[in-house]
């Protein structure tokens, strides 16, 4: 096993005033601007921050590794008394995979497709001669069992593409744990997973870290997730530390405003309103791609005028397919769609210009939803000209009004999308949808790619626009806190079927159908004991 001869008062990992730069746009830019970390044996540090905060770079730096295109420009990284900066590569390799291990975000891409899982999971241990092949594999099978992988004795003989994403993430945790390292870096290990899968993986990781008393750095953007894992949390922003505190203290009494903003979406709670005025209704819709298995199976949904309907479900539930059927991109096989009690033609081509105008769409990735070669003025102006036949002057006047409506000003009119921030991009997409003066807007995961504080701004904007313009939203999302924040009514979908439809208050209060119960209980809460309580209640 690894040597644990260090003196008691020496930290396992000590990073002092670390500075890292990255190369982009022909220049070196600072990514990490002087950060200190102190981690004792057996401690778990949560590293939280939004995109661009530098948390992954810091996590990798704790191994003495920098990604291509990055360089360390100052400070020191000391692991168990050894300085990692400037340490020769072959010495660092002796630490990697044995004393410091790494769990990557996408297990599916991080396993080599050409080798069996168990060989990959034990390679580092055998290379370092910690144990022979036979006992290493036996130990790995034990770990698979501890991590509650199905068929733990044989699953290791499979290849990566033969195993599901959640299982792969657990195999990768087993691989990281197999040499019994002093430190594990978890780099957003559950971000790509559905919530119901995330719970299982989180529980497995939490148990095993505790069991072997391993120190860990847990990197994520989700405070509720890190609260389950970490002893203390460090908040990063723009490569600098915002604050650091014990987990419970941070959740109860955060010092900095910024820290509070990390759960700002949870602070919104729209008062639900009931309405019987149905604007759009899906009746017994069946749909599939290329005539294969049904992606939508007898789906019926009613959308009330001027209200927000949230369609919630995990990947593969058919919620995005429902949106494609409503817009006419994917003609349904059976059933009908009524818009203001008139049946909509199945195909996009069959629908009139006005029918197209009435239903607009906002996408998840604002980056890909706007043509990078068109200016904001062209993007917003096109529907004005196309649907409403405005001339150049009217168009510009209306565009500026719309920009003000979305809380931006007229200076934005000649900007390109690449010159906007993520939140601004999504606002432009909203303006483009509003410009058509539609009755219904479909919002497909519009906030999932954004930071919390930006999400809050977007959600509030959408609610303001609804109040002013009386627009109906169909809000497709996998995020329960977003549903709680803005919906009036909720539809829960699972494997192409509607599990439940009703007012928000009905859906969120028991009794629940089995799947809704599982889904709701799997959403992490801002409570360090939530996971332990949940697991004990489920067993």
């Amino acid at each position, binding site marked *: 096993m690894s040597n644990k001869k260090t003196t008691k008062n020496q930290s396992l990992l000590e990073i002092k005033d670390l500075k890292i730069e990255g190369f982009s746009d022909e220049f070196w830019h600072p990514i990490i601007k002087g950060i200190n970390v102190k981690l004792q044996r057996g401690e778990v540090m949560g590293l939280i921050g939004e995109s661009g905060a530098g948390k992954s770079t810091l996590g990798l730096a704790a191994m003495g590794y920098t990604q291509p295109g990055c360089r360390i420009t100052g400070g020191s990284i000391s692991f168990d008394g050894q300085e990692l900066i400037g340490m020769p590569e072959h010495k660092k390799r002796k630490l990697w995979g044995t004393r410091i291990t790494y769990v990557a975000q996408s297990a599916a891409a991080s396993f*080599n497709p050409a080798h069996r899982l168990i060989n990959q999971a034990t390679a580092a241990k055998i290379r370092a001669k910690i144990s022979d092949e036979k006992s290493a594999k036996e130990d790995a099978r034990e770990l698979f069992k501890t991590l509650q992988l199905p068929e733990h004795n044989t699953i290791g003989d499979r290849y990566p593409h033969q195993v599901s994403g959640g299982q792969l993430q657990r195999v990768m945790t087993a691989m990281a744990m197999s040499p019994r390292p002093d430190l594990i870096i978890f780099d957003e290990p559950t971000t790509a997973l559905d919530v119901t899968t995330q719970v299982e993986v989180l529980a497995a990781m939490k148990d095993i870290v505790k069991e072997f008393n391993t120190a860990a750095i847990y990197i994520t953007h989700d405070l509720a997730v890190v609260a389950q894992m970490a002893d203390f949390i460090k908040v990063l922003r723009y490569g600098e530390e915002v604050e650091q505190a014990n987990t419970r203290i941070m959740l109860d009494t955060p010092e900095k405003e910024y820290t509070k903003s990390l759960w700002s979406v949870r602070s919104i709670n729209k008062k639900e309103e009931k309405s019987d005025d149905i604007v759009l209704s899906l009746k017994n819709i069946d749909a599939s791609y290329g005539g294969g298995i049904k992606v939508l199976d007898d789906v019926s949904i009613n959308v009330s005028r001027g209200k927000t309907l949230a369609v919630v479900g995990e990947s593969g539930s058919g919620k995005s397919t429902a949106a494609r059927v409503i817009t006419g991109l994917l003609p349904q096989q059976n059933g009908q769609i009524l818009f203001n009690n008139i049946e909509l033609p199945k195909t996009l081509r069959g629908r009139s210009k006005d029918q197209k105008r009435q239903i607009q769409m906002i996408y998840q990735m604002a980056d890909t939803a706007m043509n990078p070669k068109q200016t904001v003025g062209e993007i917003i102006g096109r529907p004005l000209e196309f649907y409403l036949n405005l001339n150049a002057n009217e168009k510009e006047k209306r565009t500026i009004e719309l920009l003000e409506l979305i809380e931006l000003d007229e200076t934005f009119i000649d900007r390109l999308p690449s010159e906007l921030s993520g939140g601004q991009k999504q606002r432009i997409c909203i303006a483009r949808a509003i410009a058509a003066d539609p009755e219904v807007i479909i919002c497909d995961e519009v906030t999932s790619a954004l930071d919390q504080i930006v999400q809050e701004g977007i959600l509030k904007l959408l609610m303001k626009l609804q109040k002013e313009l009386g627009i109906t939203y169909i809000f497709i999302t996998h995020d329960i806190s977003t549903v709680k924040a803005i919906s009036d009514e909720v539809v829960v979908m699972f494997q192409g079927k509607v599990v439940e439809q009703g007012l928000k208050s009905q859906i969120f209060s028991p009794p629940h159908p089995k799947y809704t119960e599982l889904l709701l209980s799997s959403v992490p809460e801002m409570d360090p004991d939530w996971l332990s309580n949940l697991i004990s209640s489920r067993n």
Partner: protein
Amino acid sequence: MHPVIKTVLGRLAMGVLTLFAVSLIIFSSMELLPGDFGQAILGQAALPETVAAFRRELGLDQPAIVRYWQWVTAVLQGDLGTSFSGRNASGVDRSREVVDLVLPRLRNTLFLASIAALIAVPLSLLLGVTTALYRNTFYDRSVNMATLTTISFPEFFVAYLLILFFASLYPIFPSLANVDSDTLFGERLYRAALPALTLTLVIVAHMMRMTRAAIINLLASPYIQMARLSGASSAEVILKHALPNAWAPIATVIAFNLAYLVVGVVVVEVVFVYPGIGQLMVDAVAMRDIPVVQGCALIFAVTYILLNLLADIIGIITNPRLLHPR
């Protein structure tokens, strides 16, 4: 059925279809000839009866589909038809079988191409892998610069540069690579040295650049970073993690460049007056001797298709996703 076998069979079927389409195209080159070509071949003085007899010999009085069938069955039995040349206006026919013209020259061409391939493939793989590993070093930059320059050179420029230095200024090798069936192996090698060297230089440049790109692409995969972060040494990363996934891209690169060799050989044979199939084809084109052109084109096309097919199949049988289905 195992998915690998299924995919391979599918690819083979595609290959057969492609061969069929290619044979159609090559066959139809005879159809596209202008109406008076008989006169053109036999000369202005040819009697109408001679022209008519010639047309009948070609079977132009029969429907195209019948002639295609006859042509294909003949080709499959190794009969590529009769050359246009050697005929004259008086009706005297001294023309030769295309096969007799092609076969000895095909042997020469294969000899030349194999020598070039034997040197070029290992050399360019070595250069490609090492430059990918030592990216942006002085070594990488100079090799890159040299190969970028080489691929920009026309083959005949490289060939004449070599002649200038190694045949004219310092007469080490002969500038004319005339070999015949009696030439001994050692002598043959000596005479073919400059053409082989020309081909090697051109192919190495292409192949090395493509290998480098393929390896760099592979090394950017997340699983390679993961392997590094688990403490694998550079050698282990390359041999154990990159190589098993590299067969498909490498096979494609090699096949592509061997196919390129097929083309390069034409020019090089003309420069060195090497009696190969490429030179035969160029002469036939100049004389519009269609049966010979057809025969040569068919041989080039079939080689090309088979090489690409082979690369595809190597890619399939080394793909772990197909080897180990769910």
